[in-house]
């Protein structure tokens, strides 16, 4: 029963922490690339902003683990603290958007002391829905959603038949393909939309950082 096998994989708080730390490392490594993508069609600060935000998330995790009085965190709590840290430190549009992504994911897991991989995918889906609501965007607008939406839909499809690393690897593949697919799109949201047709031919920085997060998720769970 492969379906059962995959949906009963549990997601621990430690796995989420590993994902967030790997995301911070990867976003730092690729900060310049993200900023260059943003210089082409935005205001040239996306890499700087997400690097600052996830560096603060890593510092938040360090501070928490160094405090012996801090209660043992759970998955939902860690996602919520991540959201609050990002909202406070990122600024721009990405702060509220990524903040909302983690906040809605956290809320979706609030009633699950032992979330499964399926619960996590559903939570990230809720996060993406939150991004669509506050940003007013939809897939095809050349935004984060062009990476998140195909990734989570691929993960859901795969969930019934795949192993844990495959579900997330498939999601990461779809996110990267989705980010690449923003190149021929004309932006309809955010600052890139001001360019009109001139936004065509450039990969969206937000979709790219979202793909980096999903690749980090796959790699951290596998490793």
């Amino acid at each position: 029963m492969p379906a059962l096998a995959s949906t009963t994989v549990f997601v621990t708080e430690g796995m989420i922490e590993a994902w967030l730390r790997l995301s911070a490392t990867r976003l730092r490594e690729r900060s310049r690339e993200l900023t260059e993508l943003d210089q082409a069609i935005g205001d040239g600060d996306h890499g700087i902003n997400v690097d600052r935000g996830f560096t603060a998330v890593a510092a938040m995790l360090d501070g928490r683990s160094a405090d012996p009085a801090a209660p043992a965190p759970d998955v939902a709590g860690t996602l919520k603290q991540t959201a609050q840290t990002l909202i406070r430190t990122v600024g721009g549009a990405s702060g509220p958007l990524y903040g909302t992504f983690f906040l809605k994911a956290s809320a979706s897991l609030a009633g699950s002391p032992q979330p499964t991989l399926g619960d996590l995918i559903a939570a990230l889906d809720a996060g993406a829905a939150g991004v669509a609501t506050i940003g007013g965007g939809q897939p095809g607008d050349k935004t984060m959603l062009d990476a998140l939406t195909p990734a989570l839909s691929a993960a859901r499809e795969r969930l019934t038949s795949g192993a844990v690393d495959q579900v997330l690897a498939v999601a990461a593949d779809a996110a990267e393909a989705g980010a690449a697919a923003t190149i021929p799109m004309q932006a309809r949201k955010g600052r890139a939309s001001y360019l009109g047709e001139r936004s065509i031919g450039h990969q969206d920085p937000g979709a790219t950082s979202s793909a980096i997060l999903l690749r980090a998720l796959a790699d951290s769970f596998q490793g």
Partner: protein
Amino acid sequence: MKKLINRVDDVVPESLEGVGLAHPDLVKIDLEHKVVLRVGGPRQGKVGLVSGGGSGHEPLHGGFVGLGMLDAACAGNVFTSPTPDQMEFATRAVDGGAGVLHIVKNYTGDVLNFQMAADLVNGDVEVASVVTNDDVAVQDSLYTAGRRGVGATVLVEKIAGAKAEEGATLDGVRATAEKVNANARSMGMALTSCIVPAAGTPTFQLGDDEIEIGIGIHGEPGRRREKLVPVDEIAATLVEPIVDDLALSQGDDVLAFVNSMGGTPLIELYIAFRSVASLLADRGISISRSLVGPYITSLEMAGFSVTLLRLDDELKRLWDAPVHTPALRWGA
């Protein structure tokens, strides 16, 4: 990159400290929240005015804190919206019981962060907001984030600030702010790019003989790229869409605001003002108020923007009302 800075990470806080040290009679700086506050607040019974946005547009917004304009300004990182916790702090700090107006430039980040801040004080402070969106270079359609907020923001802060100083209600101040935004349009252009300190390289590349028409205040491109021509011709390119969009006609009375993007000196700015005045005179539109200088800038970008505001007696009276801030002062 050649800039008068110490460390890239200290650009915004050290600049704020400088504002506080230069104008201790007008403002105090909360460095933790990166907020410029008017001294002596909150003022009981007066509507509080809070604005904010990415840094790099100085004197906007911190330079407009003081009598007759803002009560607080939140500074984000360069070209990056401030965060909801900064705006929440500023909103609570200036509330004198009459509510607080948020003046927000129409950029996705600013709008989202101010919305979150309004949610955070919901139930404690009555908040209204006005979103400025006066840039005719950007089409206002379902397929864009809407027109950008640029030069009209300065005029909204001055005129709504005067309205609040008169003791108007939150609804009254908001209505005045919306009236200014609805009657003002802008368009800008760039001769050179700007360099975001943390990026260290120019945001965009322009050839020696090229200009960008319809530039935004973050170096985001505008309508098109052209060859450099005399300023009379450039001014016509900026003024015509504004006049059309506002449907200005013979006999109308306007405030003409000719703004430096940061790198353009006053000698050139006044030549540009001359061009604008001549274009308006040709159409029988009279300039009864003016503002010329660097007021909403884009770091060291060279270039200028034109904002026209259709005036009536109320707007003239509020424009003329006393103002005393680090960057604007008359009558007080």
